[in-house]
């Protein structure tokens, strides 16, 4: 291979590998993107409204205005991700043309297709997708996602759903590791997961791509909790810019993600951060208003 090959599986998965152990922060303006970068974020997610506002204001949530995405891309040197609606492959084409570094096919936006997700193999830009369980994760990988994140319940500041989904995915991986091939085929049927990807996951003892946690992480301790449960990094959405002191909280969450196994450092960085986002108990949200149930 003496010619450059772009858009390959190795470079798509590889960028996610470089993000590991880091914090990806939702930002809506160039100023917020700078604050995130200065706090040590390993990437930012450019969007029009943070999930807490989408939840409060309602209406149709779409891909962000390209002008805004370009402003954010020009403001920082770290990777910039942006969200497309589930199944909206033209929003994804627009984001690829803009040059974003990763596309999040996200349940936080209003789905454009209630059956099909984007055929992500058709793109040079890599995709990250949400999952609640291993079957959902492996279906997304089958469609070409190069990175996963557990969904949690975005815009709540309540970590309970993030924990539920991470435990579900990681627990299912532990369960399949000692299974025979014939048993794996049965599990593949049960989970609705592609057999080859399930077999690969069982052999590796982990998903074949990087897996972050998302949805409800609001404090340094929340981030460290997810890391100790076994995810590779964290997304923080509303948790930073809906808190009293975003710059300080962002920096504290970055430090907690690096030093997730060091309670002395966690105690130190958790002090004096002001009020976290006010939050909304995930349990109090009626099922039809839950974001995590979007995606199939």
């Amino acid at each position, binding site marked *: 291979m003496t010619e450059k090959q*772009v858009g390959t599986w190795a470079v798509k998965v590889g960028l996610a590998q470089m993000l590991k152990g880091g914090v990806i922060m939702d930002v809506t303006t160039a100023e917020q993107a700078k604050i995130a970068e200065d706090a040590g974020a390993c990437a930012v997610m450019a969007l029009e409204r943070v999930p807490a506002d989408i939840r409060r204001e309602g209406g149709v949530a779409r891909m962000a205005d390209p002008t805004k995405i370009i402003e954010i891309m020009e403001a920082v*040197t770290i*990777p910039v991700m942006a969200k497309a609606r589930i199944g909206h492959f033209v929003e994804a084409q627009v984001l690829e043309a803009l040059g974003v570094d990763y596309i999040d096919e996200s349940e936080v936006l209003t789905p454009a297709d209630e059956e099909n997700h984007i055929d992500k193999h058709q793109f040079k830009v890599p995709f990250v997708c949400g999952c609640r369980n291993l079957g959902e994760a492996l279906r997304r990988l089958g469609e070409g996602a190069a990175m996963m994140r557990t969904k949690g319940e975005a815009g709540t500041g309540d970590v309970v759903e993030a924990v539920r989904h991470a435990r579900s995915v990681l627990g299912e991986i532990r369960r399949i590791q000692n299974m025979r091939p014939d048993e794996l085929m049965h599990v593949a049927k049960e989970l609705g997961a592609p057999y080859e990807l399930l077999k690969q996951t069982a052999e590796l003892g982990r998903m074949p791509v990087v897996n972050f946690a998302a949805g409800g992480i609001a404090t340094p301790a929340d981030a460290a909790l997810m890391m100790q449960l076994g995810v590779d990094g964290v997304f923080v959405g509303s948790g930073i810019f809906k808190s009293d002191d975003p710059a300080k909280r962002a920096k504290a969450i970055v430090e907690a993600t690096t030093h997730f196994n060091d309670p002395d450092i966690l105690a130190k960085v958790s002090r004096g951060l002001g009020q976290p986002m006010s939050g909304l108990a995930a349990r109090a949200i009626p099922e039809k208003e839950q974001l995590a149930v979007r995606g199939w």
Partner: protein
Amino acid sequence: MKIGVLALQGAFIEHIKILRARDVEAIEVRKPEQLRDLDGLIIPGGESTTFGKLAVEYGLIEPMRALCAAGKPVWGTCAGMIFLAKEIGRAQPLIGVMDVTVKRNAFGRQVDSFEIDLDIPALEPRAPFHAIFIRAPLIASVGKGVEVLAKLDDGTIVAARQGNLLATSFHPELTNDARFHKFFLKNVKSR
């Protein structure tokens, strides 16, 4: 032999796995005391701005400079190469010990990330090395005493060595080819 891998953020596990598969003791480094008694250090790929913030906050910059000054082999891949460079054309915290000028994100954004086979004469046995470049930096110029190890066809410098310091734009830790790790470990053994 004990090798540290800077584990503030990024692809540190990949390096550790390759080292351990070769029966080399490898530890994650997040705090200054973990730099003691090391025979060598690897700074992995990741985000160089994130490394910088955390390295300053946790007092790692000076001890890492001291390790480099003591002649211990130190290898930076991608963000690690940026972290070792003396000059990168913008203000951000660096170890700043290697006499090279590095340009960040030099090939463009993620859609321009690429794979290519390189000829790297220093590696044994000599055969094309499959190199993965992810939002990669390049070496724009090298100072005296810096040996260029690999170039793209257009002459772009993508790997170099200066005494105990080694830098690569690409990610040998993302492939199954351990020749670059062997090359680094040979350097560690000879000191």
